[in-house]
């Protein structure tokens, strides 16, 4: 079971190119981001990100995970919106 905070940390690093840039953008400590990525990689049993001198690169499984993470976070946002609207009855 993936944790959504782990998915957000993963996408932030992918989007910003490195853990440092992602930490600056999100305001989260790098150690927190790193811990979340470690947990996600442990679930998958494989690395998602490779570090090289020019920054962070996606592994093949990382590339697949980007699509899945985006879909999962969108589904969660949609679910929250539906839940907030529930029980209000038809709008005029």
């Amino acid at each position, binding site marked *: 079971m*993936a944790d959504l905070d782990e998915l957000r940390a993963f996408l932030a690093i992918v989007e910003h190119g490195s853990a440092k840039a992602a930490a600056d953008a999100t305001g989260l400590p790098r150690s927190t981001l790193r811990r979340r990525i470690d947990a996600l990689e442990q679930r998958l049993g494989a690395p998602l990100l490779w570090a090289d001198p020019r920054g962070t690169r996606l592994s093949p499984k990382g590339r697949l995970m980007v699509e899945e993470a985006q879909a999962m976070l969108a589904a969660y946002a949609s679910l*929250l919106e539906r839940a*907030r609207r529930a029980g209000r009855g038809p709008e005029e």
Partner: protein
Amino acid sequence: MNLERIRALVGFHAHGNLPRAAAALGVSARTLRGRLAALEDEVGVALFHREGRLLTLTAHAIELARGGRELLRSADAAIERVVSKTEEIIGDFRVAIPVGLPPPILVMIMRFGLTRYPRLRSQVFPVARPLSLLPDEADIAMTFARRPADGPWLSAQLMQTREGLYASPEYLAREGAPRSLEELHRHDLFSWIPPDQPADEWPLRDGGALVVQLAHSSPDMGLIRQCGIAGLGIVRFPRGEFPDPLVPDTLVPVLPELVRREVPVRAVMPDTPRMRRSFLAFFGNVREGVKGLGDG
């Protein structure tokens, strides 16, 4: 946010009270209560009615629990897809279909899914306007609409149907077969309600339209077909070139040289890389299967 909070709510919804839900989830009641409170903070609406120590779920919470159960399954399926690095379609998909779509098409698609993608599960919703359910209430829509709704959609044509006029031989023997468009007005007329035009404007082969007075209309093309089989009148609906063993009919075309058009059945889904990779192949195979059915 973490999914343990959603799991806590799904557990509470399933078991009805804190102690039983906590036992089922293997956590203390205190931990479970903390997760539910944190979820309530995040959603920003009340998830519980509180009477003393008694907690019951609000409508917001019930909606969240139901959707959350699907979300948890989707999360597991997502990890499994990445771990196995598979192109296989795994998980739950909600499919909106036109109400009254002939069962043989659906049975063929389900048979294909069961044999080719055994870990694919679907929920099928027959509705008047399948596209209107995308993307929140359905993942895929099958539709007779010629153009998908505005948005980033993928679209795959599954098959052609032939929309025309039909009647039972008994009806035509009793009431007489119309020989012109004018004579149609003397008959009881039935029509499905297509997604792209009014039911009482019948498109003609020459590009024009005939405005008629309908006895009955419905988006449920199966109902309209049944009215024709029962000999109630002349019916207009899209007919596939394949047999329906469940409801065999002997309907015969009426004025096919004047009233007829080709109507495609399309699958429409949100344009995401995953859908593009997996489902276009899926529907390509379904299309081949439909052709085989039509040939048979």
